């Protein structure tokens, strides 16, 4: 009790200048970007949405008047158990002119049998199989080769869609002919499983539902998620489909950006996906994701930063923002910690708990933004009980994993050793510097 009183007395007596000095990292980097800025942009989005209601309605009419064929491709390996859910949700879509293609990338379980039975039952239109595993990109490309739709919707085999999801992901193409790809809003299906999945659910809501909406509004949206995104078919053909991952979703988005097309995020088109349920699996997944940032943004597509014929400021800003808020801030954060430890070693007991409260406050605020935007706020509100844990989850765990991943990739090119891709393809990608 006495400690608590001391704690409050301490902060009561500290002046504003000292508070800023203690928490410069939070005030200048976190609060501005993730709270104040986000709220401003969300407000702008909501106002625009109101204003554009008529346009949206017209675009929807245009979509239905044309009713183009849409190919949904779902590549995966050993995903048999998830296919029925996916096929069911696709057959429930309000938009009907769909061609559903499941691609099996060399599964060694019952997946081929399950997919064949779905085909027989008429729940899917095509089942393609690589007898020999070639990696996710090759499976997606195989699907693309056989897809006949004007638009291609890429979904992960362990995902499923809201019944109006496809309709909603298509409308942006009819709102603006310059749109080349649309990212869907990916949410966590298995959030009730344990704390780890619940925390990821909050993270997805923050980073996908809100952060991507903001980046999309600013024209710097970076990743059409692999779990759920739609593309113009002609554009995919133009860029040659998917390249080797991991992180092929980010990679193809960059390729489309380079083709001078707009990429937008559609928060109302909702896809549910399964996320890792153990810390080990989650760490593995995140190491893969974060390594790909170095591999693709710093290495493969570094030309984005260079002045050349294809140079565009929006691409430059998109990359720069991404690198700044991930790589640079990771390093700055270490600087901050060292700064506090070096200058205020005796005040650690006051500064660290206060940091926690500030971040918690910021997260609660952001969660509030999520609920404003969400179509399921009554359901998602229940996640708020996990909010106190989100600070160590994002602030410590993810930051730690991210830092490790960057170092691994920068110094050891670990992404090429990841067995997520077959060795034969990784070897070739490394040899060709891709």
């Amino acid at each position: 009790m006495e400690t608590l009183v001391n704690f409050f007395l301490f902060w009561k007596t500290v002046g504003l200048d000292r508070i800023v000095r203690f928490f410069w990292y939070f005030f200048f980097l976190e609060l501005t970007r993730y709270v104040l800025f986000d709220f401003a942009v969300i407000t702008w989005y909501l106002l625009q949405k109101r204003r554009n209601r008529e346009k949206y309605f017209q675009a929807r009419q245009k979509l239905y008047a044309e009713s183009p064929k849409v190919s949904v491709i779902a590549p995966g390996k050993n995903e048999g158990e998830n296919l029925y859910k996916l096929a069911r949700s696709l057959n429930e879509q309000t938009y009907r002119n769909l061609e559903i293609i499941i691609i099996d990338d060399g599964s060694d379980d019952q997946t081929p049998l399950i997919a064949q039975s779905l085909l027989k039952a008429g729940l899917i239109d095509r089942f393609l199989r690589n007898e020999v595993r070639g990696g996710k990109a090759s499976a997606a490309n195989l699907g693309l080769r056989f897809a006949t739709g004007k638009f291609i919707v890429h979904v992960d085999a362990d995902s499923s869609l809201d019944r109006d999801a496809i309709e909603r992901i298509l409308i942006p193409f009819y709102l603006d002919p310059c749109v080349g790809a649309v990212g869907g809003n990916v949410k966590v299906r298995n959030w009730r499983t344990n704390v780890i999945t619940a925390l990821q659910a909050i993270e997805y809501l923050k980073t996908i539902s809100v952060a991507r909406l903001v980046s999309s509004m600013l024209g710097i949206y970076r990743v059409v998620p692999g779990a759920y995104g739609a593309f113009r078919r002609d554009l995919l053909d133009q860029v040659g489909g998917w390249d080797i991952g991991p992180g092929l979703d980010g990679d193809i988005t960059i390729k489309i950006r380079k083709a001078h097309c707009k990429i937008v995020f559609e928060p109302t088109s909702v896809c549910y996906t399964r996320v890792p349920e153990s810390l080990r699996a989650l760490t593995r997944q995140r190491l893969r994701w974060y390594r790909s940032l170095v591999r693709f943004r710093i290495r493969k597509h570094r030309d984005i930063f260079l002045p050349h014929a294809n140079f565009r400021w929006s691409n430059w800003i998109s990359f720069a923002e991404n690198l700044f808020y991930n790589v640079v801030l990771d390093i700055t954060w270490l600087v901050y910690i060292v700064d506090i430890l070096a200058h205020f070693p005796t005040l650690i007991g006051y500064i660290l708990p206060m940091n926690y409260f500030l971040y918690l406050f910021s997260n609660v605020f952001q969660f509030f933004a999520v609920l404003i935007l969400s179509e399921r706020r009554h359901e998602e509100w229940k996640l708020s009980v996990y909010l106190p844990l989100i600070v160590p989850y994002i602030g410590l765990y993810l930051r730690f994993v991210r830092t490790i991943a960057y170092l691994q990739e920068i110094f050891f090119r670990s992404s090429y050793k990841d067995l997520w891709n077959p060795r034969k393809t990784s070897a070739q990608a490394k040899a060709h510097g891709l």
Partner: protein
Amino acid sequence: MKVFYLTPQRTPEGTYPQFIEPVEIPDPDRLPIEALRPADVWVLDLTHPAWATSVLRNLRTFTDPEVYLRPLFGFPKDADFPDFWATLLDGSTDLGALPALTAQAEKIMDRIRRLEPLQEEHFEIQVLIRLLRYLYTRDQRLQPIRDPSRSTGYTYPFLVLHFQPTDEHRIFDIVDLGEREGLLQGRFVDRFHLCPDCYSAFLNFRETCPACSSADLKREDLVHHFVCAHVAPESDFLQGDELICPKCHRQLRHIGVDYDRPSVLYTCRTCGHEFQNPMVRARCFQCGAQHLVENLIEKVAKEYDITSKGRNAALSGFTLTLGSLFHIEGVVDYATFKTFLRHEIERVRRSQRPSTLAYFEFTNFEELYLSIGDRRTRVFEEIARVIRENIRGSDVLSYLNERTLLFLYPETPVEGAQVALQRITQFIHQLVRDNFQNFQPLLKTNAIPIDPQGTVESHLEQLFKT
């Protein structure tokens, strides 16, 4: 031993051994049966195969067992006679060597004499008994013969003589029936398929397009280029003799290092459909119909030995029973059932709790069984299922005869038993109505309470009287 030599035209006196008497049969379709009867053994002239096969057919399909089972040898030993027909002879011999076959002939004759006269109404059962008798008198194993001149491919010569060419497939129903009744014991020889439309085994199996069923397909490898993850049919990569990736324009040099062939692609030349899993369909050479393999009739060719039950049936016939068709476990024989009934009467006397005795008769089930062909297994399994579902572990089930089931329901009032019986009869009516329009099942049921003062006999008498 008296031996008759059956020949289309008499040859001059003196060319036969003394113990042989030639009989001239100019027209094989007009057999002088009465004139042939006095012989113990017949020897058939095989030098005129067409004539000989006609005589053989007419003898082996004759109604009288004394005729169709009579020992019959062929002459000459090295005659060029089709295998199919040769299996219907008891052997081929030279006339001079005939005495050596006497023992064999006598054994057959001896067994023929032991057979009891039988009157069997149903054609299938008649044929089955004829087969059993043929096998029994000769201690023979029934072997399936591969015969390209028969539509079913595999055939059983003795059986197939009894059927018209369009009905030859029914020989498999006869041996199935024999095996199910425990009269024959089969051993697997081969599995084969018949056209579901015309029962022909002459089918052309080939990969076809799932969309339009055409067999005109182009098969091509899919190529996966590792570096850029491009996957496409080989033709997309081919430029002259070289493989060049259409996406990244690199040359593919080494399989396993910079590319592989993960699967194949079929293109239908008729409709242009591209697919990976062609469907195997069979075109019937006989009727031209095309069917998916899973829709063909699958049959097993077996070789059969006659069982001891089969030998009894050969001697004195047999009757089909509901029990052997329905495969219901825990069925007791009639004598045991009567013992159960006696105990039950005693128990009711002491406990005063009601029990019920009931019966169920499917009067014309044999007719149904013989008329429904290939669907019979499913139909009878369904009936058995309903009967099983409507008896409890404590109920006792038995057969009075081949078409009557007896039920003893301990601690069950009559109403309860009637409900179970009603369910069974309703189901059979429904099943038959749905599947066989021209068949009217004749079903009878009755249930009576166990009377503590009655006897076993009085109960059974009352059960069937009311």
